[in-house]
């Protein structure tokens, strides 16, 4: 096959915070790096992050990375791997300083230090008083970070392939990663990118749900690529619903709004969180707050004519705080709700937000999968970082401000490990033509002409199905039915047809390919959620309301082949400090 080919030391798929931070490490060290992204880099969804990034800088109140570590372990309901969490919380401090040196326009305290705000689940002294740990650039922290990283990559002359869509990973017989087949969206032509190392940094899969804070492009492509390459996906049943999406629309109102002093109210004008989390109240962990809102609405204490949401109040904070600290959400409220949060309360409801699970990696960003010698064998040359990866630092529930941290820390860690790998493996391996053909077949499948359902309509149906059968509260019967319906839907997707067969900027074709990815991930999510008979973090089973550490303190691994689920133990041993044993989680 006469496919055009390009060769690089490293291929990075994804230009969000994770991909760009890895690229920067590599390009600054002289490696030849290609970054492939389906949208122009600054349009990646990291741009939408609002509230901030956690690091125990102690700019306002005394702080310690060890306290941050405790909060993260507890916040994740003891499913997080403590070696990776220790690493992340220690690295947070130099990582944020490095960002600042790169030019991120952080907000500032009067003494010129980086501004920090309180965020949910963050405490001092291992569960004591509220900490002030979340570093912010007003409420546009993701924008500030993403643009700065892109700018630094321009300085470092990173090679960008903008608006290229990665189709599938290539591995050889021995399982070594060789790069990927990608599609130029503008011309519709495939291109083979051969690389000695490949980093998957494709972000989240929030488009699995209808009402979501995630962008149209967040379709979990990298996770699905790994599934098809024989690599399992870990812990996908843990999916976070953010407590404060704009009701019915899904745009996010940052937790920073509550960090600045905002609170939730039900239709009786009651500050509802006092009942669910007497100590932390509105700054309890997200899973706790989301469930509280869902219960209020279910028990008839919701607001509005349909009683289908609660209110987030910021009107007591004063004009200045809203204008200075929350200008972005003020814009959102004005645009989408025609209200000013400095005066009027905001209608909110839990909204699909974040995948705790993903491609299993170790703390060096290396992809690990079960093989001959155990459950965590390194896949040579393959790396993953960012929301698509599962290190796992978030366990069963991510704390606000820890994802920006995760993508930056592990993006950088992957960059460093890739350099070592490149040194040890100086030569490209021959490309496996059979793998290329398999990837090409995926593209050709959509060339089929004739009558068939439209991928677009099927995507809507998939999103509704996931919302109905795998939402905030779950039980066996609902999920079993969901699985059956999903099987039927997947069969219909296999028969769907495109009407548009043009090459040039064919977005219908891209969306069809994304739909296939979503359908595989939906299967992974419902299958694992159905299998896990306990409640932990974001996974709440009405029929199994308690956490069950004896049977379920373990990670799920979903394999596409045979839709099989396997498990592996949680790494409870940190690097240098004592392990935090599981305790009952109260806020």
């Amino acid at each position, binding site marked *: 096959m006469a496919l055009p080919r390009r060769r690089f030391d490293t291929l990075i798929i994804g230009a969000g915070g994770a991909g760009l931070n890895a690229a920067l490490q590599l390009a600054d060290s002289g490696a030849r790096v290609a970054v492939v992204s389906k949208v122009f880099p600054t*349009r990646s969804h990291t*741009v939408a992050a609002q509230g901030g990034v956690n690091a125990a800088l102690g700019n306002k109140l005394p702080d310690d990375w060890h306290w941050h570590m405790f909060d993260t372990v507890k916040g994740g309901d003891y499913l997080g791997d403590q070696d990776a969490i220790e690493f992340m919380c220690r690295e947070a401090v130099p990582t944020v300083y490095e960002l600042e040196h790169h030019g991120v326009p952080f907000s500032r305290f009067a003494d010129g230090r980086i501004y920090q705000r309180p965020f949910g689940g963050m405490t001092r002294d291992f569960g004591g008083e509220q900490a002030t740990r979340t570093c912010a650039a007003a409420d546009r922290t993701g924008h500030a970070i993403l643009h700065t990283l892109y700018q630094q990559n321009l*300085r470092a002359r990173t090679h960008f392939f903008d608006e290229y869509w990665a189709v599938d990973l290539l591995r050889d017989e021995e399982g070594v990663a060789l790069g990927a087949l990608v599609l130029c969206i503008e011309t519709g032509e495939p291109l083979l990118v051969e690389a000695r190392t490949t980093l998957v940094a494709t972000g989240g899969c929030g488009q699995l749900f209808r009402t979501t804070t995630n962008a149209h*492009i967040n379709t979990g492509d990298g996770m699905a690529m790994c599934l098809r390459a024989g690599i399992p996906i870990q812990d996908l049943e843990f999916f976070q619903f953010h407590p404060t999406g704009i009701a019915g629309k899904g745009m996010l109102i940052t937790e920073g709004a509550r960090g600045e002093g905002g609170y939730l109210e039900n239709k009786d004008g009651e500050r509802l969180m006092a009942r669910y989390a007497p100590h932390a109240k509105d700054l309890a962990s997200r899973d706790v707050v989301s469930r509280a809102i869902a219960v209020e609405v279910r028990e008839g204490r919701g607001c509005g004519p349909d009683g289908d949401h609660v209110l987030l109040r910021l009107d007591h904070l004063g004009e200045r705080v809203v204008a200075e600290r929350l200008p972005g959400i003020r814009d959102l409220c004005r645009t989408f709700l025609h209200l000013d949060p400095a005066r009027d309360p905001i209608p909110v409801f839990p909204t699909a937000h974040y995948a705790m699970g993903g491609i299993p990696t170790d703390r060096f960003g290396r992809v690990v999968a079960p093989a001959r010698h155990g459950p965590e064998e390194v896949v040579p040359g393959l790396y993953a970082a960012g929301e698509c990866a599962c290190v796992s630092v978030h366990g069963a529930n991510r704390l606000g401000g820890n994802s920006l941290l995760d993508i930056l820390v592990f993006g950088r860690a992957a960059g460093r490990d890739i350099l070592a790998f490149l040194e040890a493996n100086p030569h490209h391996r021959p490309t496996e033509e059979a793998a290329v053909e398999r990837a090409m077949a995926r593209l050709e499948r959509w060339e089929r002409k004739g009558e068939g359902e439209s991928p677009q309509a099927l995507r809507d149906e998939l999103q509704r199905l996931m919302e109905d059968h795998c939402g905030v509260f779950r039980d066996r019967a609902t999920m079993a039915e969901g699985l059956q319906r999903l099987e039927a839907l997947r069969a219909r997707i296999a028969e769907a047809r495109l009407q*548009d067969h043009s090459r040039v900027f064919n977005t219908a074709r891209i969306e069809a390919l994304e739909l296939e990815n979503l359908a595989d991930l939906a299967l992974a999510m419902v299958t694992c959620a159905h299998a896990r008979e306990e409640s932990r973090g974001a996974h709440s089973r009405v029929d199994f309301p308690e956490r069950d550490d004896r049977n379920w303190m373990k990670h799920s691994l979903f394999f596409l082949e045979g839709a099989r689920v396997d498990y592996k133990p949680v790494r409870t041993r940190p690097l240098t400090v004592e392990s935090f044993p599981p305790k009952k989680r109260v806020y």
Partner: protein
Amino acid sequence: MRLEIYRYDPESGAAPRMQSYTVEIRPGMMLRDALLEVKAGDETLAFRHSCGEGVCGSDGVNVNGRNRLACITPMAELREPVQVRPLPGRPVIRDLVVDMSTFYRHYREVKPYLEHRDPLPEQEIRQSPEERARLDGLYECILCGCCSTACPSFWWNPERFRGPQALLAAWRFLADSRDQATAERLEALEGPYRLFRCHSIMNCVDACPKGLNPTAAIARIKAEMLKESI
């Protein structure tokens, strides 16, 4: 409500044309929602979009003669028939998708990254809240291109005039107390074209969906240059 949308497919061999569609308006509907509805019925319509909330900068289009982001343009505000065209002055790839490479090149040319030359402190480089406040109205740019593609000077001199977006970006770094490349930055904008093609027509200010003011930034650069030259 009736929409007239610019259609062009280079593979078809046909000339560009306006195609009419009718969309049922719901309360709170944005132009992006309307375009998605059109696409649900006619999947051949191509346009860029992603975040749906005005932060990614993907969906700049020309609506009834004005450059706007489709996702934050309420249908209720628009005159019927709603004419939707690609951003003006750029080569059209297909339908509402334009080639923005020249726009991005000008951005790269102003070296849009912080240059701090002193040894770095172990912690943050200190910056007072007042110094930081100078970056407000500058750093929020989302690279949507609504401004530069509304600028007559950019239409006539797209290769040589940097355009309002890139000049705003240049000022964002000149204004940063941590940046130490002032002289080079100013020097790089000298000559009759890169900066001085701006005739303060203010189209860019009207067009910016984020309420930013490139014209003011350009005036500040000019003032700064004057200061240096005395």
